[in-house]
């Protein structure tokens, strides 16, 4: 995780750049496959925020699918 929660709920800023994180297209690579997804990222340094909810939710389900579990 590269961001910290600030101001209103769901608004994050980059810990490194102190810039507000914005939603944008990111390509996630996993086990040789690329997936374009919409994630919060820092416009300045490009760090991407993956929240716990996201990591333990659909990204975990994607991993299990690709690992054929």
């Amino acid at each position, binding site marked *: 995780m590269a961001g910290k929660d600030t101001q209103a709920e769901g608004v994050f800023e980059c810990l490194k750049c102190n810039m507000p994180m914005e939603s944008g297209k990111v390509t996630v690579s*996993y086990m040789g*496959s690329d*997936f374009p997804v919409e994630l919060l990222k820092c416009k300045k340094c490009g760090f991407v925020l993956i929240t716990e909810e996201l990591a333990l*939710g*659909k990204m975990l*389900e*994607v991993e299990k*699918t*690709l690992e*054929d579990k």
Partner: protein
Amino acid sequence: MHSTVSCPLYEGRPIRDVTGDAIRPGGFIITDRALAFCSFAAGARVLDVGCGVGATVEHLICNYHLDAVGVDPSPVLLEQGRRRHPGLPLVEAAGESLPFGDGEMDGVFAECTLSVMKSPDKALAEFYRVLKDAGWLVITDVYARNPAGVDELRKLPLTGCLTGAMSVQTLIQKISARGFEVVLWEDHSRLLGELTARLILAHGSMAMFWGCVSDKSISCEEIQNTVQKARPGYVLVLAKKPGSSKEGNCRHD
């Protein structure tokens, strides 16, 4: 097609927003793999059964210079195809009753469509009839890697390839029983996994995707459990109508 729900899975936006116009795992990846194997001459007459909006017909004409035609029983998809590409040869017909003469085709493609047909056996007989001697049959489809889960899949309130999935052994038996020589089958389950991953990312989870496409008569979790039990995979089968020198059978996993 099954009649349990009004809108077939392949006609709806929840899946087509993810697959694009090819409406199947892998898009043209396995189509191209099959074409490399079959080596059709330019101008060869080929038929795409279950052509949907005609994406594969367009691919075969524009990129392989084949004399391709598509059939589909869905007026909705055909109309979208005609709007997308006026002049594309798309005909309204079911795979079980093809409007072509005997021995007219050099190749027949049925990509992720045999499993949505009312009678795969009748369709295979039609494929055989319209093919020339030594013509190629290219089938790609969802299959059940756990055949014990097939009966439960059939009962799901969905209209799509999953509910018609069979084991690969059953699929090959059906193709062989119609007189075809099965030349090759390859497992491409990885492509189905990638499509599933894209559906999860687009909809939040597979359970949520099932919620978008089912008639709500059973829970999304129940659908997901039934699907997981059958362990769906994806397969390419290449078969030949007899009439040329025999080639050795092979299997690639």
